[in-house]
């Protein structure tokens, strides 16, 4: 009995020391993560949460005029049609263009980028040369390249793209790229593709270099051709990287904003508008903050659904080597 109490006393003491140590460690940890956490909480997390609240309000920027709670009205404004000049038509156009942008640009960026990575990796000379030059569009800023694309797609015959197409006899007259709905969309898409290819290429290059070499040697011993080992070994092994790249590209397509704002600003008549540009203009040109917040909540939900979906697929498809 006596022994038992001393043991429990000892345990208690050890636990106390352990608790103290844990307590101390937690305190130290907060000294390290504290500043970052506070900044994140105040300037990122809180604004994102506040956005959700604002989405249900007729939000007033003027501190003297109170904001009023209006329930789902901002969401109704986006989703339900209200006459000829209603916002919902513009919202659906912006949503359509955003989805189209993802649908068109992601496959091109992915496929060309992957092929480039594979081709460069198989070269005997000049690997770094090509990687370096093909990466230049990636590091150049969106602001600059958007203006640049507006310039090369001008509607005169002396503009770069029209001139090349005229010289190759693909077109007979200069195309008014930015004046028409679909040609203007093509300009925006080609900018996204042109700038994204290099990033995909580098992402695949690093993945290719991480691949275990001995599998290929084994395949060669077994008489597999290069083509066979590409389709049967390389492609499956790159699968988890592929999912990551495609998700990043889709999220990137939802991030399209500067491209549209600088090249067309949604014109002609909002036919090339995308969600972020539409939201930005609603907030900072019309000062309709509540509606803009509702739009951001809609977008946030779409993106989280995509990410969760991607995580599920990736977890199922993970191949260890």
């Amino acid at each position, binding site marked *: 009995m006596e022994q038992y109490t001393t043991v429990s006393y000892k345990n208690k003491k050890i636990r106390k020391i352990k608790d103290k140590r*844990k307590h101390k*460690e*937690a305190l*130290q*940890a*907060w000294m*390290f*993560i504290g500043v*970052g*956490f506070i*900044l*994140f909480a*105040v*300037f*990122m997390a*809180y*604004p*994102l949460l*506040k*956005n959700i609240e*604002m989405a249900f309000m007729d939000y007033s*920027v003027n501190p003297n005029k109170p904001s009023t709670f209006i329930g789902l009205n901002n969401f109704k404004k986006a989703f339900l049609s209200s006459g000829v000049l209603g916002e919902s038509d513009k919202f659906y156009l912006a949503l359509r263009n955003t989805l189209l942008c993802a649908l068109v640009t992601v496959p091109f960026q992915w496929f*060309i980028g992957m092929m*480039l990575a594979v*081709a460069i990796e198989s*070269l005997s000379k000049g690997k770094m040369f090509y990687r370096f030059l093909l*990466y230049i*569009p*990636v*590091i*150049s*800023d*969106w*602001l*600059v390249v958007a203006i*640049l*694309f*507006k310039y090369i797609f*001008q509607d005169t015959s*002396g503009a*770069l793209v029209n*001139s090349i197409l005229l010289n190759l006899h693909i077109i007979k007259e200069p195309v008014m790229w930015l004046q028409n709905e679909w040609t203007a969309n093509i300009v925006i898409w080609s900018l996204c593709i042109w*700038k994204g*290819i290099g*990033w995909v290429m580098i992402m695949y*290059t*690093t993945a290719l270099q991480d691949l275990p070499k001995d599998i290929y040697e084994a395949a060669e011993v077994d008489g597999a051709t290069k083509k066979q080992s590409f389709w049967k070994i390389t492609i499956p092994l790159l699968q988890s990287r592929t999912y990551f790249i495609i998700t*990043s590209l889709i999220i990137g397509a939802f*991030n399209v*904003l500067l491209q549209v704002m*600088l090249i067309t600003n949604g014109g002609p008549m909002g036919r090339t508008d995308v969600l*972020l540009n539409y*939201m*930005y203009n609603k907030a900072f040109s019309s000062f309709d*903050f509540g509606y803009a*917040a509702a739009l*951001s909540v809609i*977008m*946030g939900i779409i*993106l989280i659904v995509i990410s969760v979906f991607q995580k599920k697929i990736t977890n199922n498809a993970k191949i260890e080597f």
Partner: protein
Amino acid sequence: MKSKLNQILKHLILLFMVILALLPFMNMITTSLIPNAYVLPSEPQIIPKQFYFGNYVAVWEGEDFGRYFLNSVFVTCITTVLTLIIASMSAYGFARLNFPGKNIIFNIYIYSLMIPAILALVSQFTVLQRLNLVNTYAGLIVLYVSGGVAGNTFFLKGFFETIPRALEESVIMDGGSRWTVYRHIILPLSRPALATMAIGTFSGTWMEVFTALTIIKTQSKRTLPIAIKLLQNGKATQWGIIFAASIIVLIPIMTIFILFNKQFINPGGSQGAIKG
């Protein structure tokens, strides 16, 4: 023989892709060297035939461009330094220390990365308004730094975890503090990762438009991207001037890229590749 032909064919295709990637830039550089390019020339200029630097002089001297340049240097450098300090400390905390709520906070960080930062801009503006930080560099920098906390902590934590623990245990045994470990072991050993992160933060901040456009109102406080965006807002676009300005703005980024291109495009730097 067949494989040699194959290699040549690949080189040809790759050279074609390089031309596609660089032709617009050639066009831009040449245009910036032509006087008064209000109207487009009848033929696109790819190879410069003349070297007229008047546009560059006009950009640098007119419109307070030099001042905007300094503003941008100031904001970008402070942001990069603060981000380095805050993110590396935070990443060390997550990589090595245990505390209640650690996993929850870290998961929130990761989820926040999927949401475009611009979605928060509207309410970030209202928060700054309440703190009286609208139209100040403090406000702008605080948004830049806060926006980078989650992503950079995530990136550096992964790197710190690859550093063997044995090194720091000996320091702790000798009575050293966590701070000593962080300062004298973790930081020196993770220079490559810190460099990658610094480059990413620098280039991201250097050309950031929307936050700057929203927060900064006074003309003299403008940063470069705002200046460029406003240059092209005018009705008669002066392409020569705009492109001269764009090239001046691209120079720091290109210099960094040329000096540190291995950080960008070399194997192992995969996490550092910047998705612009």
